[in-house]
């Protein structure tokens, strides 16, 4: 089972995402921003970091990379895509997911262990969870405040597209405590916290992050 991890200039958590894929039992494949080629992978992770420095808007420039043209087409065809942090921002800039991220309401970079509640346990990346399960992963970002207009928020909630909510206080002002969402089809998931930093004993707050990767491996096998 091959899972591609995209590297942009300024990607930071790409090696971590590849490690998480391996720990979950998948084969991690490096994808390069400048190549319009997905190298036959069964799923794609767009990792965290500050692509192109995030100077304009987080994810704004990465969206125009050649590899993203392929990712966008494949995602529309049902390929599982997970965007973590900067990856989530890139997915919203690419219009694969609705809404956008703005600066945290407290205007600081915030790194902390974060409890999330699973709201959708049927997407490609969350089917190994139970609805209402609480998980602990790492939150770390500067522009993590999820925003969307009211109609979009209502629709996300109504259609079960809210995948995760923050528990124990909203860490950044995100609308309706939303930490992660999926598209309608459930193959594309974006979330601000980092599951790839909760996969290894002794190197993160929990092992809860593994389920993201085992979920997609499971789904790809049964598909």
């Amino acid at each position, binding site marked *: 089972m091959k899972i591609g991890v995209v590297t942009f200039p300024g990607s930071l958590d790409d090696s971590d995402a590849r490690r998480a894929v391996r720990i979950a039992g998948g084969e991690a494949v490096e994808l390069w921003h400048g190549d319009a080629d997905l190298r036959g992978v069964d799923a794609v992770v767009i990792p965290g970091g500050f692509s192109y420095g995030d100077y304009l808007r987080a994810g704004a420039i990465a969206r125009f990379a050649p590899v993203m043209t392929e990712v966008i087409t494949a995602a529309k065809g049902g390929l599982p895509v997970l965007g973590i942090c900067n990856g989530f921002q890139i997915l919203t800039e690419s219009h694969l997911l609705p809404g956008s991220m*703005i600066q945290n309401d407290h205007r600081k970079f915030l790194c902390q262990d974060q409890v999330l509640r699973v709201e959708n346990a049927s997407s490609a990346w969350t089917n190994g969870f139970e609805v209402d399960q609480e998980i602990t992963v790492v939150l770390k970002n500067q522009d993590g405040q999820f925003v969307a207009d009211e109609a979009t928020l209502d629709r996300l909630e109504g259609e079960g597209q809210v995948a995760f909510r923050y528990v124990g206080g909203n860490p950044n002002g995100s609308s309706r405590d939303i930490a992660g969402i999926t598209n309608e089809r459930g193959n594309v998931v974006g979330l601000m916290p980092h599951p790839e930093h909760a996969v290894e004993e002794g190197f993160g707050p929990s092992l809860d992050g593994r389920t993201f990767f085992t979920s997609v491996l499971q789904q790809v096998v049964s598909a």
Partner: protein
Amino acid sequence: MGRIVVDVMLKPEILDPQGQAVRGALPRLGLDQFTDVRQGKRFVLSVDGEVTDEHLAKAREAAETLLSNPVIEDVVNVHELTSDEPEQAPITGAGA
């Protein structure tokens, strides 16, 4: 060399943490006449030679595709920077 200004602001309905922080800090400086502050981005694009309509059209395209995200932002302004604008002579910053 010609220059084109593109101004981008967060949509009015989107909360602006940066603007709010400024708003909160002003009274501490004894500046309490401002009822609201919004912070946006200003881009200055340079072109070789005079600014043409074609340049302006391209600048508008850049503004709408790259320089702003329509989900949260509005492009409020795309115009040539003419030399009678104060821009050319900074009103502060002589020293430093």
